[in-house]
C-alpha cells in the first residue's frame, strides 16, 4: 500500500505527562482513516505534530514516503497537510474570501490575481460547498465556519486533510452533508484523517480505524471487518480491577436535583440538552462522556457561573437557579473543575497555598483583615492530610507540580464542608499514588454523607469508585447505570451515542422516586 503519511515511533511529553508514547500510524493514499480514542488518549496532540504546532520529542514522520521535518504550520502547509482545528482559527471580522486569502500560496507575493476568487469558487463548486464568500465570519453559523475551514485547506491545495472532531458542533443534516463532501474529497484523491468519538460515524465514513488509548497506539482495523462492539472494546480496553474502595453508605434523600437542564456553550451551541439527574447524600455519581459532551457547562451551570436556558436546579428543596456563585457556595455546593491547563479555574496561580485556601471564605472572618493565621494552619493541615509536596505554605501554587496543585484545589473544596461536592477531572494528569490519595479523600467525604458528582475520564476508575454512573453524549442523557450491574462496553456504547437506555423498560432515569420536585414543578 502507498502511504500518504507514516509516523514511526512518535513520542511527545508535556513535562512529566506523556501524551504520545511510541506511536506508529499510517495513512494510505486516498483513504479516510478514523482516529478513535477516549479523551486524553493523545489524538489531538498527535495531529498537532503533523500541523506544525508541536514538535515530536522523538520519532520520524514520512510524507509520501519521504522523511519530513515539520517545524511550523508553514512547513506543514508546504507538505500538503491541512488541518481543520476543533477550535476554528478564523479572523472574525474578515469575510470568508479574506480569510482564505491570508494563507494562499503561489498566488503572487504582493497581489493576488483577479482569478483567485474564481479559483476559490471553483473549488467550492467542485466539492459542493454552498458558501457566501463575502459574508463576514462574525455573521456565520458554526457549520458555515466549519465549511469555510475545510474550503480553506482545500484551496491551499492540501492533499492530506486532518479534521479534529468536525462533527461535534454539527446537526445530523449537517453531518450528512459533511460526509458527502469528505467522500467527494476522497474520490478526488485526498487522504483524510478524521478524529471522532461517534462510532456510528466511524462506521459510516471511514475505510480504516486507528485506535489510541492512553497515549499508546493500539491497532488499526479495516472498518468493514469490524463492528461497534469491537471498536468500543479496543477504545476503552478490558476492565482492569483497580482495587479502589467503595464503601456502602446509607443514602439520604436527594440533595441536589437537576431537572430538564439546558445550557449553552460559549459558542452558543446547546451544550447540555434537557438533562435530569439527582445526587443523594453518601453516594458518588459518576459522569461519563467523551470530552466536550457538556461536562464543563454542566458544572458551571450548577456553580452559578453560567446562565441556564431552561430547567430547574433544586438543592435541599430550594431552587438555586439565578443565584450568584457566592450564594450557591453558601448553600453548601462546592465545585472544583480541573481544566486542561489545570490552573485556569479555581486557583490564583501567583498566590500562595495559604491565599488559595481562603479564596472562597476569606470574607467570613471578622474585621477588615484577611485571617492568614488560621488560613496558614488550615493550609498546613491540608498539606499534611493530602501529603502535598511543597517547600512551605507560602509557595505560589504555580510552582507546585500538577498533582499537588490538584490536591490544593480539592483540599480547599472539602475544607469548607460542603454537602454537595462537584469535582471534574480531579485526577487529570496525576500519577497512580496521587490518584489514590484523591479517591480516598472522596470516599472519606462520601462517608460523611456528602453527595459527590464525579466527572471523570477513566471508565475503570469510575466503575470502581462511583455508585452510579450517568452517561452523557453531546449534552444528552444516555442513561444512568449502577456500577455493579454494567459493563465497560455498555458505558462505551452509551458514550458514543450508540446506546440510549433512558426511559427504556419503564425506567425513568434521572428522576428520583422520592423527588422533592412535584410533578407540576417538574413539568414547568
Amino acid at each position, binding site marked *: 500500500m502507498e502511504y500518504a503519511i507514516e509516523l514511526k515511533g512518535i513520542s511527545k511529553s508535556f513535562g512529566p505527562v506523556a501524551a504520545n508514547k511510541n506511536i506508529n500510524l499510517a495513512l494510505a493514499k486516498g483513504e479516510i482513516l478514523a482516529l478513535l480514542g477516549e479523551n486524553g488518549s493523545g489524538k489531538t496532540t498527535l495531529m498537532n505534530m503533523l500541523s506544525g504546532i508541536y514538535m515530536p520529542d522523538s520519532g520520524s514522520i514520512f510524507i509520501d514516503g519521504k522523511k519530513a521535518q515539520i517545524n511550523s504550520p508553514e512547513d506543514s502547509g508546504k507538505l500538503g497537510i491541512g488541518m481543520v482545528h476543533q477550535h476554528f*482559527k478564523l479572523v*472574525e471580522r474578515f469575510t470568508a474570501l*479574506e*480569510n482564505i486569502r491570508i494563507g494562499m*500560496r503561489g498566488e503572487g*507575493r504582493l497581489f493576488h490575481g483577479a482569478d483567485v476568487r474564481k479559483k476559490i469558487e471553483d473549488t467550492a463548486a467542485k466539492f459542493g460547498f454552498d458558501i457566501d464568500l463575502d459574508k463576514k465570519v*462574525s455573521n456565520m453559523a458554526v457549520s458555515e465556519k466549519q465549511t469555510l475551514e475545510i474550503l480553506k485547506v482545500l484551496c491551499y491545495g492540501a492533499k492530506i486533510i486532518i479534521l479534529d472532531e468536525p462533527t461535534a458542533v454539527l446537526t445530523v443534516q449537517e453531518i450528512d452533508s459533511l460526509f458527502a463532501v469528505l467522500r467527494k474529497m476522497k474520490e478526488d484523491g485526498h487522504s483524510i484523517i478524521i478524529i471522532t468519538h461517534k462510532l456510528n460515524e466511524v462506521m459510516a465514513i471511514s475505510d480504516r480505524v486507528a485506535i489510541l488509548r492512553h497515549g499508546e497506539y493500539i491497532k488499526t482495523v479495516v472498518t468493514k471487518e469490524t463492528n461497534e462492539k469491537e471498536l468500543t472494546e479496543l477504545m476503552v480496553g478490558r476492565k482492569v480491577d483497580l482495587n479502589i474502595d467503595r464503601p456502602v453508605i446509607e443514602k439520604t434523600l436527594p440533595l441536589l436535583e437537576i431537572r430538564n437542564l439546558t445550557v449553552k456553550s460559549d459558542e452558543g451551541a446547546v451544550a447540555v440538552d434537557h438533562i435530569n439527574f439527582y445526587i443523594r447524600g453518601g453516594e458518588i455519581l459518576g459522569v461519563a462522556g467523551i470530552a466536550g459532551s457538556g461536562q464543563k457547562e454542566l458544572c458551571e451551570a450548577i456553580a452559578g457561573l453560567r446562565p441556564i436556558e431552561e430547567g430547574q436546579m433544586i438543592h435541599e428543596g430550594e431552587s438555586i437557579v439565578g443565584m450568584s456563585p457566592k450564594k450557591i457556595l453558601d448553600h453548601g455546593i462546592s465545585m472544583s473543575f480541573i481544566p486542561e491547563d489545570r490552573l485556569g479555574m479555581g486557583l490564583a496561580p501567583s498566590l500562595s497555598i495559604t491565599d488559595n485556601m481562603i479564596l472562597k471564605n476569606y470574607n467570613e472572618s471578622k474585621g477588615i483583615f484577611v485571617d492568614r493565621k488560621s488560613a496558614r494552619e488550615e493550609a498546613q493541615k491540608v498539606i499534611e492530610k493530602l501529603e502535598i509536596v511543597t517547600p512551605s505554605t507560602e509557595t505560589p501554587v504555580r510552582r507546585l507540580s500538577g498533582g499537588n496543585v490538584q490536591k490544593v484545589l480539592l483540599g480547599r473544596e472539602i475544607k469548607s464542608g460542603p454537602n454537595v461536592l462537584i469535582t471534574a477531572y480531579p485526577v487529570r494528569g496525576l500519577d497512580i499514588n496521587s490518584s489514590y490519595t484523591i479517591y480516598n479523600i472522596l470516599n472519606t467525604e462520601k462517608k460523611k454523607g456528602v453527595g459527590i458528582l464525579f466527572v471523570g475520564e477513566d471508565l475503570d476508575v469510575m466503575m470502581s469508585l462511583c455508585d452510579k454512573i450517568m452517561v452523557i453524549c453531546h449534552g444528552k442523557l444516555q442513561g444512568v447505570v449502577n456500577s455493579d450491574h454494567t459493563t465497560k462496553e455498555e458505558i462505551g456504547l452509551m458514550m458514543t451515542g450508540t446506546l440510549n437506555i433512558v426511559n427504556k423498560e419503564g425506567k425513568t432515569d434521572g428522576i428520583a422516586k422520592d423527588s422533592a420536585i412535584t410533578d407540576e414543578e417538574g413539568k414547568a
Partner: protein
Amino acid sequence: MLDVLTLFLFNIIVYNIPLLYGTTGEIMIEKSGSLNLGVEGTMAIGAVAGYLAGAKCDSLLVACLVSFIASGLVGLLFSFLTVTLQANQNVTGLTITTFGVAFYYFIGNALSNSKGGWPTLSGTGLDAQSQAIHIPFISDIPFVGKALFSHGILVYVGILIAILMWFYFNKTVPGLKLRSIGENPAAADSLGVNVAFYKYTHIIVGSGIMGLGGLYMGLNMGGTFEGSNCWINGYGWISIALVIFANWSPAKAILGTLIFGFFNTLRVQNAALAYTFPNTLGWLTKIPSHFFSALPFIITLIVLITSSLTSKGKSGEPQAIGRNYYREDR
C-alpha cells in the same frame, strides 16, 4: 477677505500634516496588534536626527533618510522589547516618549552650548528644498492654487503615504496578512504568516514614518531650537487620538487631520477670522484657545465611549491590540 480664508485653508494643511505622519505611522503599528504610546518620543528623535544630518549635508533627502532611520531604530527597540522580550507595550511606549523627548532637548542643549552652536536653517539648501514647490498653472489657480497646491514636498509625501497605506492595507496580500495579525495572531500564525517578522517590519516602518512627521515639524518651525519648547509639542499624542478618530483607516486619517487641523488653525487664527468677518464670526474671540487645543482629545474621548456603547463590529480597532502574542499560549 479671500486672503484670510486662503491662508486659513493653507495653514490647516501646512501646520497639521505632521499629524498625518504620526497617525499613519501609528495606524501601521496598531494594525499589527501593537499599541505604541511612544509617538511623541519617536517623532522627537526623528526630528532632531534628521534635521541635524540634513543641515550637515545640506540635503532634504538626507534629512528624510536619517530621520526615517533614526525613528526606525526606535521602532526596532520597541519591537525587540515587546515582541521578542514580551515586555509590556504601554510601559515601553511611554518610556520611549520620555526618553525621546529628553533626547531631543539633551542633544539640542548640548549643541546650542557647543562651539559650533545649533545649525540654522534659513538660507541653506535644506531650507530651499523644503520650501513650497510652485507647480505651473495649478499653483496659480486663485484661492485653490494657493491653499492646496503651494506646499513643500513633504506635504505631498505625507498625503501620498496615507493613500499608499490605505492601498497597502486593503488591496495587497501583505496588508491582508498584517491585518489578520492585528485581529487574531493565532489564526495568522496557523496559516503560516510569520507573526514576529510582520510585527517587527511594520513597527519599524511605522516609526520611521512618524520620524518624517517630526522632521517636518522642525523644518516648519524654521529649524530653531528652543530650550523649553519641543518641536513636537504634543502632536504625537494628538496623533494617537487621531488614530481612534480615524477608526484605524489611513484614508480617514487624511480627513481627520483636516478636521483636527481645522480646530488647531482656528485656535491660532480665530482673531484674524473674527476681525475679517465681525458680524458672522465675531463670537470666535470669546472662545478660549485652550478649548480648541483640548478639542481633539475631547472629541476622541467621546468617540471612544460612544463606539464602545454601540456595536463592536463597526469599530476598526484591531481586536488583538495591546496584547503580546506568544505561540505557546494557544
